[in-house]
C-alpha cells in the first residue's frame, strides 16, 4: 500500500515535471546545443576550430570583444555609483521612500527596450534637451555627440540594468545593523568614512551579486547598443547579428555567439564560486547580526 502510493506519487510528479523538461530539451537545449555544434563545423561538415582561430587572430574581432567588455565595465561602474544612494535610501529612509524607489526602479523593466531607447534618442540627439541646456548654460559651444556614441550606449545600459544592482544592494544594506553606523558617528567618523569603513565592506555580497548581473547583462545586450550606438559602435551581440543576418556567415556567427556566451557565463560562474566560498567562510565565523 505504502509502496504503491509512493510509486504513484512518483508517476504523478513525473507527469507534472515531464512536459516542461521535454519542452525545454526540445525548444531550448537542442537549438543552443546545435548552435554550439555548428561553431565547430567547417562548410564541408568537418570538425574544426578554424572559426575560433579566426576570431582570436583578427585584431578587428578582438577589438569588438574589448568594446563589449569596456562598455559593460563602464556601465557597471556607473550603476554602482548610482545604486548606492538609492539602496541606502531604501534601507534607511523608511517605507515611503522604499516603495517609491522600488516602483520607479522596476518600472523601466516593464517597458519595452524599444520605447526606452526611443526616449533616449530624443534626449541625447544633437538638438535634444541635454545638448540645448548645456549650450544655454554655456558649458559647451558645439553639441556633444551623445547619440550614436559610446556615451549613449553606456547611459542606455545603466538605465536598463540599474534595477539589477539596486535590489540586491538594498537588501544587503538593510541587513547592516544601524547601530554600527551610529557607533562610527559617535566615534567621530565622517559620513565618507562611515561609508567606506562600515557600509561598503558589509554590503560587498550585495554589491558583487548586483555588479555581476549588470556586467553580464551589459555584455549580452543587443538592442541598446544597436539603437543608441548605431553602426559605429560594434559590440559582440551586434557583431553576431551582423555576421548572421547581413553576411549570412552562420558558422563564424555561431562561434562569436559561443565566445559571448562563455564570457558571460564565465563571469557568472566566477561570482557564484567566490560567493559560495564567502558564505561558507562567514557561516564558520558565526552569524553576523
Amino acid at each position, binding site marked *: 500500500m505504502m509502496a504503491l502510493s509512493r510509486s504513484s506519487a512518483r508517476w504523478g*510528479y513525473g507527469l*507534472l515535471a515531464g512536459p516542461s523538461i521535454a519542452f525545454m530539451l526540445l525548444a531550448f537545449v537542442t537549438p543552443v546545443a546545435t548552435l554550439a555544434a555548428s561553431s565547430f563545423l567547417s562548410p564541408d561538415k568537418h570538425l574544426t576550430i578554424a572559426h575560433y582561430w579566426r576570431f582570436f587572430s583578427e585584431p578587428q574581432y578582438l577589438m569588438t570583444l574589448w568594446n563589449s567588455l569596456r562598455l559593460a565595465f563602464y556601465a557597471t561602474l556607473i550603476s554602482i555609483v548610482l545604486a548606492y544612494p538609492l539602496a541606502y535610501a531604501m534601507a534607511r529612509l523608511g517605507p515611503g521612500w522604499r516603495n517609491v524607489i522600488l516602483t520607479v526602479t522596476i518600472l523601466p523593466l*516593464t517597458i519595452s*527596450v524599444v520605447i526606452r531607447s526611443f526616449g533616449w534618442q530624443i534626449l541625447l540627439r544633437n538638438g535634444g534637451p541635454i545638448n540645448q541646456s548645456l549650450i544655454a548654460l554655456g558649458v559647451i559651444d558645439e553639441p556633444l555627440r551623445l547619440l550614436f556614441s559610446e556615451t549613449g550606449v553606456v547611459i542606455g545600459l545603466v538605465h536598463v540594468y540599474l534595477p539589477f544592482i539596486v535590489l540586491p544592494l538594498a537588501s544587503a544594506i538593510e541587513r547592516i545593523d544601524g547601530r554600527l553606523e551610529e557607533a562610527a558617528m559617535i566615534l567621530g567618523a565622517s559620513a565618507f568614512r562611515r561609508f567606506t569603513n562600515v557600509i561598503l565592506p558589509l554590503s560587498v555580497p550585495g554589491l558583487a551579486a548586483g555588479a555581476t548581473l549588470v556586467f553580464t547583462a551589459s555584455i549580452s545586450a543587443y538592442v541598446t547598443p544597436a539603437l543608441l550606438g548605431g553602426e559605429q559602435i560594434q559590440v559582440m551581440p551586434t557583431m553576431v547579428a551582423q555576421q548572421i543576418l547581413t553576411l549570412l556567415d552562420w558558422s563564424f556567427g555561431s562561434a562569436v555567439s559561443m565566445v559571448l556566451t562563455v564570457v558571460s557565463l564565465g563571469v557568472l560562474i566566477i561570482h557564484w564560486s567566490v560567493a559560495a566560498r564567502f558564505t561558507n567562510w562567514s557561516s564558520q565565523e558565526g552569524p553576523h547580526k
Partner: protein
Amino acid sequence: MSKVFGRQVALKVLVAAILLFILSPLIVVIICSFGSAAFLYFPPASYSLKWYHEVLALDGLQEALATSLLISGIATPSSVILGTCASLALVRYPFAGKSAVMAMLLSPLVVPAIVIGIAMLQFFRSIAVLDSVHAMTIAHVAITLPYMVRTVVASLEMEDRSALEAAKMLGANPLQSFFYVTLPAIKSSVFSGAVFVFIISFDNYAISLFLSDASTTTLPIKMLEYIETRTDPAIAALASLLIVFSVILLCISIWAVGIRRVARLSGG
C-alpha cells in the same frame, strides 16, 4: 542634529535626481506625444491630442498588435501551466537530478538573448515545419518559463505543509488538495508571475527579431520600424499608450503580491 538633517536632505535630493534620470526617457516620450507640430520635438512649441487619433491609422499597426496579442496570449498561459506544474514537482518531490532539471529550466536566464534568438532561428529553419507565429510562441514560452518557475518555487517553499497533510487525512485526493489547499496559497504568485510573463513576451524584441518575417511582425519590431522611418509624434503617442499600459500592469501586480515580491520577480 542639523548636520544629520542636512545630510538627509542631501541624500533625498540625490535620490530624487537619480529617480528623475530613470524616468526621464519615459517623461520625454509622453510630453512629445502631445506636440502639435508634424515633427517630433522636445519641448513641443504647442500642444494637441491629434497624434492620438492617428495611432490606430499607423500603417500595419493593427496587424502587429494582433500578432503580439496572439503570441503573448498563447505563450502566457502555456508558460504559467508548464511552470506551475514543474515547480510543484521540483519542490514536493525529491528526485535524482533535481538540481540539474532546475538548472535547465532556469538556463534561458543566463544565455544572452541574441544567442537564443539565432539558435532558435537556425533550429526552426532546420526543421522547416513551423511558421513564424508558432516559432515566436515557442520561443516566448522558453524564455518566460524561468520567471514562472522561480516565482512559484519561491512561493511553494514558503507553503505550510501541515495544511496539505490535514487535507490528505481528511481524504482529499491530490487534485482536490491542489485546488483547495495549494492553489489558494500560491495564486497571487502565479498571477503576478503571469503578468510578468505577459510583459516579457509582449515587450520582447531581441528574440522575435530573428523569428519574425516580412508578413509577421510583433509590435516592438513594428515600433522600431516606425521610429526609424517616421518623424512625427504619432509614434510617441503609441509609445505613451504602451507606457500607460505597462504602468497599469505593474500596479496590478504590486496590488496582488506587494512591491517586494514584484521586485524579486523582476530579477533582483
